[in-house]
């Protein structure tokens, strides 16, 4: 299958279940809400070593937040509810509580509750105040700029992590342009994040390693520098640079929609812009229950 000169592999991305939550961070203005959100989602690219995968979902206008201030919604994903609870508490405690003028709220109402401000309240050293408003408990913690208001809990839902696209391009400039366009298209959709820097990862990995201590290692089949060296290389002489986009979403359909618009954005640039082929990472169907077939996604997109 070739679209606008771009070969679409008859392959699929393999994703796995995660636990996730959304939190809404508001502040006196968008700048400070963004500061808190960027900080809270820092060092959260991969569960392999970060404990969670997190990113900014979108910015919120004053009419969209509980307190009428501008805000940012953040999605955080982890491999278990327990780990997620730990990450949320640490990140909100160190990055949102500390950030001037911020407040934090749950962005998902239905699901198992994990602590948001529930334990952070003890920072108030006895001066914290609980407030039930319309059935929701908030904590008011005195801080040096006034009060830090935090909803007591947020909800955890089952999510999908690890959706991905491999963009095989002519050179670095083309790969960056295509990746940036694809990420921009995906960021316009709700319920998904692309957790890697700029939404793009250049160090795609395969499962396992020659070293027993490592569970993942470089995806040698897609490394241009190993063309001619590895037996199963997917690289052609025209393909000098490959980028991967990883997508985490609240539901399978959210991840599918993001992959679709990402592919469409790449195809719009086409071979003329340097995108030669789109593939996806999978592990033979053994890793995760969610399979996103690239050609089916595109076909579904064109029919709808």
């Amino acid at each position, binding site marked *: 299958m070739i679209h606008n000169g771009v070969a679409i592999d008859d392959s699929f991305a393999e994703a796995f279940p995660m636990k996730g939550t959304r939190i809404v961070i508001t502040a006196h203005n968008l700048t400070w809400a963004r500061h808190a959100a960027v900080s809270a989602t820092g060092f959260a690219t991969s569960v392999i070593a970060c404990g969670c995968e997190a990113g900014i979902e979108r910015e919120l206008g004053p009419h969209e937040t*509980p307190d009428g*201030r501008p805000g940012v919604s953040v999605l955080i994903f982890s491999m278990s509810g327990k780990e997620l609870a730990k990450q949320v508490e640490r990140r909100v405690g160190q990055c949102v509580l500390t950030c001037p003028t911020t407040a934090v709220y749950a962005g998902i109402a239905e699901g198992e509750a994990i602590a948001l401000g529930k334990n952070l309240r003890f920072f108030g050293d006895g001066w914290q105040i609980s407030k039930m408003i319309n059935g929701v408990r*908030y904590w008011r913690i005195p801080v040096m700029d006034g009060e830090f208001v935090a909803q007591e809990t947020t909800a955890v839902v089952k999510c999908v992590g690890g959706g991905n696209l491999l963009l095989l391009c002519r050179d670095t400039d083309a790969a960056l342009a295509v990746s940036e366009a694809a990420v921009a298209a995906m960021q316009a959709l709700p319920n998904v994040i692309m957790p890697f820097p700029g939404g793009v990862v250049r160090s795609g990995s395969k499962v396992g390693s020659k070293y027993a201590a490592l569970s993942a290692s470089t995806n040698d089949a897609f490394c241009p520098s190993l063309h001619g060296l590895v037996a199963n290389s997917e690289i052609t002489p025209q393909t000098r640079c490959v980028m991967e986009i990883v997508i985490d979403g609240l539901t399978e359909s959210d991840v599918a929609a993001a992959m679709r618009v990402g592919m469409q954005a790449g195809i719009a640039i086409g071979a003329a812009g340097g995108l030669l082929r789109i593939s996806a990472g999978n592990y033979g169907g053994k890793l995760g229950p969610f399979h996103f077939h690239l050609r089916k996604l595109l076909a579904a997109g064109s029919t709808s």
Partner: protein
Amino acid sequence: MSGWHLRLLQAPAVRLDLRGMTPAALAGLSAAQVEQLRVGFGNTTMALAEFFKVEPLSPDDSADDSLVFEGDLSRCDRIGWQLASGRITVEGSAGHYAGGCMSGGELRVKGHAGLLAACEMSGGSLTVEGDVSDFAASTLPGSMDGMRGGCFIVKGNAGERFGDRMRRGTALVFGNAGDFLASRMVAGTIGVGGQAGAHVGYGMRRGSVVFASTQGTLDIPVTFVPALVDAAVFWQLLARDLARHGGPFAALPSRTMERYLGDLATDGRGELILAR
């Protein structure tokens, strides 16, 4: 059976105790059974039919689990006592303890209510279109906690000791409140649309009392201190919730506020909020 309509035949000579007359308790009974239910009458009990004409609610009333009282029931106490579900409407005034200890459901009084309305209420909603007497949203004698949940709306005025020992929930008075408003309050939210009497927040430990009126002046007790900084985020959360109830509270989100913290004679973490 969708519910019952109980019309008071005449004002009882002594006070009636209507505890137990809840939609759930009457569900599934025949008219004859309902008529024979015993109600407290002074120091004895009598059949309900001695005082009320009992009729099933028409299906048009679309009132599942409903109970409608008609007449001046100001001598009928404990209407909606321990109500947990369903809906009770009083087409007139209610006596003492209206909605006392209710934990769910809805009670609406079209007229006035007597003493101790919503006392120790823990859930559901109670609306009194008229006035309530003293000790509304407060505690039963000898008990430590007053109202502890739910939503209590008084469209008229309230008597003294409104919200005494209140611990949780929202209690709003659209009109004026008497002396000792929010006395010994432990937590929760009280809103007043009109004026308040003397000794507001006497012995108040925590909780919020919102004054929505811009008329008159509130006599801030000397055991309260002005807050140096506002609490704008919390105020927006609270004001938006109170605005749902309309009346004097409708415009709160667009108004600023001034806070006083106390009562320093006790815990000192309560707040009197004056909307500006």
